[in-house]
């Protein structure tokens, strides 16, 4: 019985934290399948502030419209004005921990900002940038 408990503990210590920290790594591996060069936080930063106007309101939109240029600060939903918790993992430990949540927001927010889905390459750069914040 004792051995079983010890084994379970070792399993938990080894694998559980890895599964949390691994959300971004898992996605980056998926994106990398269609790309040869490494993902780059600086490229991600450029994408972060790049503005697009191809929306119905013809208003310039970027990631920073809602999240601001400082990922460690509170953002604000452009329409509803609801506060958005900081995106930087260094400030908000809940960020980038769940693959499903990341996929949901990348899909919605790429479409809102750019008017289309992001490519694997863009998502790779963006996630690498956000992770570094």
């Amino acid at each position, binding site marked *: 019985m004792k051995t079983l408990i010890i084994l379970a503990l070792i399993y938990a210590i080894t694998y559980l934290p890895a599964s949390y920290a691994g959300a971004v790594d898992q996605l980056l591996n998926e994106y990398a399948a269609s790309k040869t060069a490494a993902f780059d936080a600086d490229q991600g930063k450029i994408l972060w502030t790049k503005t697009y106007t191809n929306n*119905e*309101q013809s208003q310039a939109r970027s990631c920073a419209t809602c999240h601001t240029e400082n990922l460690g600060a509170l953002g604000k939903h452009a329409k*509803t*004005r*609801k506060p958005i918790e900081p995106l930087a993992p260094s400030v908000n430990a809940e960020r980038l921990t769940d693959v*499903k949540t990341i996929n*949901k927001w990348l899909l*919605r927010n790429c479409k*809102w900002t750019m008017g289309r889905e992001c490519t694997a390459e863009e998502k790779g750069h963006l996630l690498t940038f956000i992770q570094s914040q």
Partner: protein
Amino acid sequence: MKYFILIIIVFVSLTVLSVKVTLGDDDHEHHRYSVFERQPGVAPVKNHLYEQECSSCHFAYPPGLLPAQSWQAIMTGLDDHFGENAELAETDRSAIQGYLLGNSADKSELRRSQKIMRSVTESAVPLRITELPYFKREHHEIPARLVKDNPEVGSFSQCDRCHQEAKNGYFSENKISIPGYGRWDD
């Protein structure tokens, strides 16, 4: 023992009295005070997934604020959700739709849900709570400077900015406090 019975009699009569006052209370007669809070006007949200998914962008509107056909229409057009993309994974989308349809205004016994249902025709599919005839009637006296032009509110869609107990399903006048203005009294 005598005292005990006396206390019980006093308590029971107070309860009966207060229930009477509460039942007699109306939106426009909110000055009477009751120690017992009456039931909410709409049922508060009781679904973790709905609250988590929808309130990341806006106030989680209680399902009893719209008829079933409205929720149905909203939940089948999430890719253009009032100009925003609010797409969900299909499993989450259908789970949330199930919750909304199961608790929509037409299925509620509560006061405001019933008033909302009485204000819409059977074939109507209002997509916005703010378009409901009942909603308009209740808010038509509020000047723009307090809501639309009020930087702390911005729009009628932000129920909980002024209705302090909206989260719990209470929308009575005595629970209104307009940011930068205070109590609303008409």
